[in-house]
């Protein structure tokens, strides 16, 4: 049994090493502006970055723009020889976090709020969809009042869709602290929105 466990552990370790090596090779090819490598990076991470951004920004068009902006910054980093040093995913997550933060900062400076103008997709009750949109906007607004770390944990966990272990690795924290950050962030949101009329 112990032998089986150690075998499984070493297999996982080897697979992680291979994945890391493969990602580094991909990164090196991307530094040389290899079109195939760049396409692979874009397609591999676009969905996750989009989900991360959409977790924090409601308007779909803005989400698309901000997601594209993350990849543009990635190219800029490659051109400046300031490319991601560790993992592509980690670098993209950091870039996405900064892009969203800058977006909200610009919105606050301009003193306006973008409206989600996306039309209901036809399935379901339109009134219910509008209510759902309002709920989501209220939730996103509540998230912005959390600490920076709590916001990132929630975005990575529920938006990016990473498991606790990967979130811990990405944020360079222990799994335990990521679990606690997550629990306290959800509890805070639950507590803050419990009195909200829409939430009821």
């Amino acid at each position, binding site marked *: 049994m112990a032998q089986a466990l150690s075998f499984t552990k070493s297999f996982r370790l080897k697979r992680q090493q291979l994945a890391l090596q493969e990602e580094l090779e991909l990164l090196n090819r991307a530094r040389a*502006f290899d*079109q195939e490598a*760049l*396409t692979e990076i*874009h*397609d591999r991470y*676009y*969905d996750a970055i*989009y*989900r*991360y951004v*959409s*977790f924090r920004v409601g308007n*779909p068009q803005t*989400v*698309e723009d901000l*997601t*594209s902006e993350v*990849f*543009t910054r990635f*190219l*800029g980093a*490659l*051109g400046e020889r300031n490319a991601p040093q560790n993992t592509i995913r980690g670098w993209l997550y950091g870039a996405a976090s900064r892009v969203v933060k800058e977006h909200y900062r610009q919105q606050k400076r301009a003193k306006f709020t973008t409206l989600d103008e996306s039309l209901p997709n036809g399935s379901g009750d339109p009134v219910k969809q509008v209510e759902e949109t309002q*709920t*989501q906007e209220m*939730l*996103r607004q509540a998230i912005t009042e959390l600490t920076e770390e709590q916001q990132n944990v*929630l975005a990575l*966990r*529920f*938006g990016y*869709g990473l*498991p*606790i272990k990967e979130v811990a690795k990405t944020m360079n924290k222990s799994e335990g602290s990521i*679990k*606690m950050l*997550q*629990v*306290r962030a*959800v*509890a805070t*949101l*639950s507590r803050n*929105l*419990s009195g909200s009329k829409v939430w009821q």
Partner: protein
Amino acid sequence: MSESLENIQAECLERLAQGESIEEILAHYPDVAEEIRPFLQMASQLSSLSSQPYLAAKRASRQSFLEQAAAMQDSQQPRPFFVLRRLFVSAAIVAAMLVLIFSAAFAFSTTALPGDTLYGTKRTAEQWRLSLTQNADTILELRARYNEERIREIEALLRAGKTAEVEFEGKLESIAADHWIVAGLTVLIQDQTIIEGTPQLGELVRVNGRTDAGQLFADTMMVLTGRLEIELPEQIPATPSPTATRTRRPTATRLPLLTDLTPTVSATPTSSPEPTATATPSPTVEPTETSLPTPTPEDGNENEGGPNDNDSNENEDNDNESNDNESNDNESNDNESNDNESNDNESNDNESNDNESNDNEREDNESNDNEREDNESNDND
């Protein structure tokens, strides 16, 4: 919030992430089910907050991403214009540095003496300046200045007692058996000293020699009078040349003075060959040639005329005419005296006028020979 409740909530979130429904999760924790229900509802709501991208949006993003990458790659490759500009800037820097180095070398070389490292640079700079100068007056002025510099260098070498090869030009101020004074410098004459031309007081001479232990020894002494003007037409345009060639005639007329000096010159062993050279004149051959076919003046021109000297040709034509008359007279009167006239200067059969004309003829031929030598030496130069 108690630590145990946080742990339960963490477990609940794990279960939710694994796909369990809220009711299924709450069933595991009946004691705190109502307390954690809003927590789980909030977590469930958060899971629905993010959305999946549209495929069209993903494609558009990919296309834009790759286009930007291609543009960035092009901008990173050095463009020909920038390469050329970089090359030009590099060349300009190198050129500026070379100019600076050469300027510094030229500046430092002005005080260099023969034998010094920078002396070659000094002479090269002088040659460059001479070759870049077009004006005849400026060339003469520069030559005079550089010659003065040569004399100053020799004076410095003599003071320092250094050994070096030297060359300068100057007026011959004094002639003695073992030393001459040229441009104020005492030049020691040795047995191996080669003297070219017939030195004469006041004439311009070029001295090649060496300084050693404070003394200046001559290797070669060359009389330059009549030579310097011939060198100029090679370097300067047409206008100064006619005046230069005309000045040659006075030097030819000066030559009779040479005979006054010959006793002092012949006292030195090296100058003695010169009078013997004049004693076997080529003109004596020419009268015999002209006397045979009773030539026309055109023949005389063809035989004796140099391509560069029209004045001398005209004079020679006249001389030939007088020779013709003279030869006719001699033919009619005395053939022997004609032979003697052509071969012997001291013949008493000829009339005094004939002797005078013969003397003049010989002098003219001598001057022609000298001029021919000068031309040859100029061609060699």
